[in-house]
């Protein structure tokens, strides 16, 4: 695996220094450096839950493009977060096949229970509700993603159980977090 020839250029890049092996592996998959941008943005988001201006700059440095180009991608792709999110991101599918099976009611139930609307995070930092488009599981409607887990054929009882499991810390959080850094 060729390492980035970066001893001088990236030695002060915290992102690179923290994830050296992963980033070297990503970069090696592509003939140009900018192709590594999306996977590196995912790396950032998996650690922090969102992508800050500082992280965009560090990603730009690694990918040999400008911070403006990174911002273009971060704002274009809907799953990259430009603000901190909760430990559990509830991505409700709102598109027609799910809507035909009460996705609107599912949203209303969750929204009332948690006291938040689309794209908001609860005060305790535990939950964020997001509107997602067709998750490619329409036969199991209504569905939602709880972080990386797809939850299908949802009912009130299922939702109550999922929220409880999150509150008890029985489910994997959305981001791993890093020392001394509050997402």
């Amino acid at each position: 695996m060729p390492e980035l020839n970066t001893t001088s250029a990236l030695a002060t890049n915290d992102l690179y220094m923290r994830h050296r092996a992963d980033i070297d592996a990503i970069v090696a998959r592509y003939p140009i450096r900018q192709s590594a941008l999306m996977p590196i943005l995912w790396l950032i988001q998996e650690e922090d839950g969102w992508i800050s201006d500082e992280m965009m700059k560090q990603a730009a440095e690694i990918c040999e493009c400008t911070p403006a180009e990174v911002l273009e991608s971060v704002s274009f792709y809907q799953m990259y977060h430009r603000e901190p999110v909760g430990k559990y991101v509830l991505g409700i599918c709102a598109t027609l096949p799910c809507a035909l099976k009460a996705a609107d009611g599912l949203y209303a139930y969750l929204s009332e229970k948690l006291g938040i609307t689309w794209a908001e995070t609860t005060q305790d930092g535990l939950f964020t509700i997001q509107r997602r488009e067709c998750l490619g599981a329409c036969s199991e409607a209504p569905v939602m993603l709880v972080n990386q887990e797809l939850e299908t054929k949802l009912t009130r009882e299922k939702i109550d159980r999922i929220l409880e499991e999150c509150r008890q810390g029985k489910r994997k959080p959305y981001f791993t977090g890093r020392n001394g850094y509050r997402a």
Partner: protein
Amino acid sequence: MAATNNYEPILSAGVTGTVYSGRSESLADYRAKGGYDGLKRALEMGPDKVLDLIKEANIRGRGGAGFPAGVKWGFIPRNRERPHYVCVNADESEPGTFSNRSLLEQRPHLLIEGALIAAFATLSESVYVYIRKEYYEATRQMQRAIDDARAAGLIGKGILGSDFNCEVAIHLGAGAYICGEETALIESIEGKRGYPRNRPPFPAIQGLYMSPTVVNNIETLAIAAEVMRRGVEWFKGIGTEKSPGMTVYSISGHVNRPGNYELPLGVTMRELIYDYAGGIRDGNKFKAVFPGGSSVPMLFEDELDVVMDFDSPRKYNTFLGSTGIIVMDETVCFVWASLNLMHFYWDESCGQCTPCREGTNWMYKILKRLEAGQGVNGDVELLEDICGNITSRSICALGEFATGSLVRTIPRFRAEFQAHIDQGRCPFEKGYMRFG
């Protein structure tokens, strides 16, 4: 039952359910069934003969357009002045479509074999599998399969002892419907926003990294692997003359047994809804169906005997599309349904072309006010007018896709649209909103 009732699934053989069921075919299981024998045969035949064979099979692209894979591969230059690329389209984001998900999760080796055959035939040594980020389990299974295949000498240098070298890597999306469009997908792999490119130049000449590139849907490639293994005659014995073979239809909405159904091209819509998906729920009456994802015009009751192959739906000005079938019963309000979908297209339009950007914005605004009971006379005609103008001068087909829920619906159900204005409210009860 239908004429297709003895058909045994090939692509989805052993696949259970729509979402991950805990079993993903291992390399050993796949090889025990003759897996990678198609690749072996391809390596023995050489790239030119493989290309001829795929051309002869007439595998029409399962990603929506139905363009023959062999012809597409044939556009790739037969030299290696620049590296060539194969991009596997597993972005599956068309509302109502979930067949690629099951194949990715449960039969990843079939897809890898197909991609390797495509690479071999088009003189490429590099495959990128573009998977939408939301498909976490599919990504895990695909990555595991790639690692296993590499360990077994099926990916990398000197594949199966030949002089064919090929790398396979996954590239994950980040929630953008437009990245399923082939040139947006290419831009995305290049690390940019998913803005579709103007054509020409076509990807076969200047695609990924300005090099000759093939973009194929994963089901197309899965079929290519089966054809290499079982032969052209076998393939042409299934389906219809002009649409040979099989496909996986995804059925959702108000049917008793929603799910994925692999069948020969040639089954009728009525058979799909009533024989396979078990008919309409609660004994309700059928109202309308999207035959190929939410981006194609709907079919109505008197049109259900249409054969679901690549060409027959055209006589109703609609398309096989993604074979994502969304069934709606009599309780559904078309204004509400169109509004739901227009939000999707409005949100997903990349904004490069004026007709698409402005058109989706206008239609979204009008549908919102109609559904809120605040429409004004002339709104329905205005919608029709926008539908007629959005398709021109656009870089890609998304603008046209946005009109799928309206173009055939307004002329047929004008009264239903107009009633929202006349009554100053939506006349439907919306039982489908009740959440249990």
